[in-house]
């Protein structure tokens, strides 16, 4: 299998099973290019979260091949995986904020893990909190934030490092429609900067809001791709970062 250097992710006949149970993902194949926007849809139990876990390197598949940024991540030694995880931004369905850290420290966490000096950290984190409208709550602990505020902190943490790929699991599941749209615009803005975005959602109304997006539909662990457009998508026209 060969992967062009421009491919962000390539799945080939990937299968995943937990223990001796039946496969939760079967023969999943697709390619993600830089700067593309994908919605991952499907009913509950269709395998969306399992697919996302493979994407953010929390799980190895039972079979098949996965390449990320041109590298086979299945055979990659464990100690080299952190470098790949640092290229990703993840919004977890349950936010997964560190409960005893403030909103500021939660957003700063990926930069600190990446070795950014404290002196270089305050400005981007404050900018990001301002951008998600939470600069006035930067010292608040997650328990004192509303669901929507926690979600925005989680999103700020996911995008603070300008990831090459953003993976979001039901990021609008806990907010009202107005807030959901605002969050979607945030992802679009990031996508315009060149980040590949994969958003798992069961909200069909959301899909229409991003006209250029592609839809990956999972049904009982299998990816619906009747035309092969997901496995062999047209190579996108290269554009300058920040343009659309």
């Amino acid at each position: 299998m060969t992967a062009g250097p421009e491919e962000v992710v390539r799945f080939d006949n990937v299968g995943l099973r937990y223990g001796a149970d039946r496969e939760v993902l079967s023969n999943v194949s697709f390619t993600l290019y830089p700067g593309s926007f994908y919605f991952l849809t499907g009913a509950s139990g269709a395998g969306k979260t399992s697919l996302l876990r493979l994407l953010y390197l929390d799980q190895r598949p039972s079979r098949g091949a996965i390449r990320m940024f041109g590298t086979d991540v299945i055979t990659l030694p464990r100690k080299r995986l952190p470098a790949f995880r640092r290229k990703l931004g993840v919004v977890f369905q349950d936010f997964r904020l560190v409960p005893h850290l403030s909103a500021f420290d939660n957003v700063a966490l990926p930069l600190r893990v990446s070795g950014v000096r404290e002196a270089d950290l305050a400005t981007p984190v404050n900018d990001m909190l301002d951008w998600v409208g939470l600069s006035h709550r930067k010292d608040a602990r997650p328990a004192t934030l509303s669901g929507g505020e926690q979600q925005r902190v989680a999103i700020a943490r996911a995008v603070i490092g300008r990831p090459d790929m953003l993976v979001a699991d039901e990021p609008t599941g806990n907010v009202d429609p107005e807030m959901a749209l605002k969050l979607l615009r945030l992802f679009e803005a990031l996508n315009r900067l060149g980040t590949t975005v994969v958003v798992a959602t069961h909200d069909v109304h959301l899909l229409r809001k991003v006209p250029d997006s592609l839809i990956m539909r999972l049904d009982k662990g299998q990816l619906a791709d009747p035309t092969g457009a997901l496995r062999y998508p047209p190579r996108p026209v290269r554009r300058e970062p920040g343009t659309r």
Partner: protein
Amino acid sequence: MSNARPPALGRSVARGFSPFGGERAAALVPHARLAGPMPWVIAIMVALTVIAAAGGLSLSNLAREARAELAGGATVQIVVAVPQERERQAQAAQQVLQGHPAVASLRRVSDAELDRLLEPWLGVGGELDTVPVPALIDLRLRGPADRATLTALQQALLETAPGARIDAQSGWLAPVFSAIAALQWLALALVVLLAATAAAAVWLAARSALGTNRETIEIVHLLGGTDSQIARIFQRAVGFDATLGGTIGLVLGLAGVLVLGRQFAALGAGLMTGAGLDRIDWVVLALVPLAAVAIAMLTARLTVLSALRKML
């Protein structure tokens, strides 16, 4: 929330694989400090280890001093029932021994001294007149009190003092040295056992902290934190607790050693005078908490790394 273009971050910020450490990293794992059990467990372990090590070191000093003291010592007994003949043989033996090349010095143990030595068994009142007690001569030899030297001395005394018997002083105390050696081994075993117990306690504490902070660890792991970074967070926390506990334990242990030292010094027994601690011994005792910190940090690191290896 602003709908404006997001701030261009990340690329403009210097990122790398430099260590994630210091206060910020440590804040990821909340600590109970003195309110938690860890510093106190380590304090107790260090205090007991300091006392056991001090005991072992002072026994070692005692054995060394006593051996040096007794190595060239011998005692001549004039075992004769008739007091006048005993006195004659004792004086003759002194004359022979004074001129012998193997003898450095000698001292006749006085009757008053013998009285005092025998007082616990024979009571007060100078029973030396009624009970035949041998005359004693304390010898310091130029070399060790080995069998050849003792035989030569015995031969020299044979003619003038046939009632003389000569013994190496170290021979009398062989069972005592054997008991001291056993106590030294016991002290060493106690130190090793306490170190192992401290390591086990840290292992349990690290496992418990891992369980409590599992969610945080998974988050840092998924954000690209390396095993070493995460282990360092726990290592630092455990190191801080161990330093705190080690300091408290050292103070408690040294206080115990000083109190015990005074109690034994008050005994005034001749054998105990060599059982003090010298400067190097005190340095060794001061190293006990440092060793505890090192063991605790190493144990924490290995425990966390082992748990992390189970994650992808």
